[in-house]
């Protein structure tokens, strides 16, 4: 592997990290505020991809604009889901299996609604940009990946600003730090939870649309990304936005460079095993940091 190849891979990894971060951040805010492991996240990602696809096919709306349009639409959708299902779950400091299975059941429903509407053919969004390379010297990157990366980063920055500068962000942070104290000082728990669920869903839809610009998709689309999201938020400490960015970079680097590792002249990880990296990493992270994870049940991490 020479320098140019290495640089190419590094850039590919960073671009991947951007989209991974956008994908995982929706899961983090929901987990942080409500302690719900949102398995329906995968369903929201899938719907986001089909949302951009439908807008593109029917109305010839650019998928990037489609992704931006997904934000308000999925925000309302998420609030609806919260109103219909999530708010009935009893409050808990730690994640409950009931919430996990409820969201899982909802994911099954979303998946099958997807099958009803779109069947199980592979779909993809192909614009003139999809394969158009941007070349600088010997380094070349598909333009669509650059655009997706930029969109993801802009969105993360906006989210970070909402977190740190707005009243809503402040009440979210308060609920993450201490739900009881937050309510004593007048944070409306129900309202903030509803908005947070909407926000998390909006980001999932947005990220799904971005992913749909790069990968082909079926109604099962979200599943590998669900596990990746979980690896990322576990790596990032579960409740922090900047942790998500870090986790996304670690996972993207491993996935990009892992298949390149040679041992005695043999690739130890063939390309076909690449999807197993994130799944294996999930277990390994849980294995080598059992203390770190079990302490999450009692100790509250602060949002940064």
């Amino acid at each position, binding site marked *: 592997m020479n320098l140019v190849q290495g640089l190419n891979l590094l850039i590919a990894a960073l671009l991947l990290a951007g989209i991974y971060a956008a994908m995982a951040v929706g899961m983090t805010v929901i987990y942080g505020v409500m302690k719900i492991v949102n398995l329906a996240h995968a369903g929201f990602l899938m719907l986001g991809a089909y949302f951009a696809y439908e807008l593109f096919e029917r109305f010839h709306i650019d998928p990037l604009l489609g992704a931006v349009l997904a934000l308000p639409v999925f925000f309302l959708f998420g609030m609806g889901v919260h109103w219909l299902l999530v708010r009935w779950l009893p409050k808990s400091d730690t994640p*409950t299996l009931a919430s996990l299975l409820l969201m899982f059941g*909802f994911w099954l*429903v979303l998946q099958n609604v997807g099958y009803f509407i779109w069947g199980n053919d592979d779909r993809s969004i192909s614009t003139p940009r999809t394969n158009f390379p941007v070349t600088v010297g010997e380094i070349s990157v598909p333009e669509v990946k650059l655009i997706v990366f930029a969109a993801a980063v802009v969105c993360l920055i906006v989210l970070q600003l909402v977190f740190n500068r707005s009243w809503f962000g402040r009440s979210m942070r308060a609920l993450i730090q201490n739900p009881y104290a937050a309510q004593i000082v007048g944070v409306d728990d129900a309202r903030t939870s509803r908005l947070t669920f909407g926000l998390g869903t909006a980001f999932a839809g947005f990220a799904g649309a971005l992913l749909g610009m790069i990968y082909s998709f079926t109604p099962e689309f979200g599943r590998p990304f669900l596990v990746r999201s979980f690896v990322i938020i576990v790596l990032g400490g579960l409740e922090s936005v900047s942790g998500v960015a870090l986790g996304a970079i670690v996972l993207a680097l491993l996935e990009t460079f892992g298949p390149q590792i040679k041992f005695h002249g043999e690739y130890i990880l063939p390309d076909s095993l690449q999807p197993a990296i994130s799944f*294996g990493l999930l277990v390994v992270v849980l294995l080598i940091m*059992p203390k770190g994870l079990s302490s999450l049940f009692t100790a509250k991490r602060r949002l940064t």
Partner: protein
Amino acid sequence: MSPEKSTSSPGRWVKALLPWLLLAVLLLLPAGNPSPNVMKLLFITAVWTTTSVAWNLLGGMAGQVSFGFAVFFGLGAYTTGILMHLGWSPYLTFLEAGAVAAIASVLIGLPTFRLRGPYFVIATIGVTEAVRVIMNNLDITGGSSGYRILETKPFNAAEHYYTAIVAVALAVAVSSLVAGSRFGLALRAIKQDQDAAADTGVNPYFAKLKVHAIAAALVGIAGGIYARRAAFFYPGDVFAFNTGISILLMPVIGGIGTVWGAVLGGVIFGMVQEQLDANFPNVHLLLYGLLLILIILFEPDGLVGLLRRAARLLRRRREDPGSKDADQVLWGRGGIAGR
């Protein structure tokens, strides 16, 4: 369950005899010479019920919800396939399938049982996905193109059926034994409060590994039995995420924590899925998704809980507190107040 205890002795007799009566009916069924489709339906239902009852050992009794039982089902299928290819008797390969699955369960359990609650659940999702990807790329499994079992004997639907029935009976017997034993008590203690259980002298880590291995062995046997009749299978089928989901959904729908709930869930699932799969592929998961949502929100005890409710209404008994099994699994520590 205290009102049941006070029923007259004929009631108790019926309760004790019912499983044997059921078994007798199941054993006599092929004598009626049913159509091949019915035999297939009965066979599949028996296989699913075995996995459902096995899952309930870990998920219902010990309260450790796993999405990863497809791993054991798939390993059982491939063990049987590969050993039969080498000329082993099928019945020996079933035992071997159970053993392989049990060993795998220990390897998986050693790291994952360090985690609790939802983190354990998420880890099992990671494990099952990783195993499927790896199996898709191994030479010994034939990769994604699948594996074929060639038997020289003519196909005998009744033999397959009886094997599956024996597996169900074995699973139910093991479950009942565990439920009534000191070990079963330890498992229930872990479900209620792992720390308190550890304080009273139960080793939660070891107990979980043990029950995981028992459950995995049963699922492995079921996988082997399934593979022999299917004669062709591939990792995207037996190791599929959806297989793991199905194994989890059956006992949850039937009623978490009770052996007969798991049986009921398995029977209904097997029957409904075979019908739906043939006519409307993919609809069954929609149905189960909706059922799961309704069960979580309204009746955590599943169908068994519904039946209990119906029985209460009929008998106009005083409020029966019911079992707290589902509550403990779903909400943690002793259920939620005021339900």
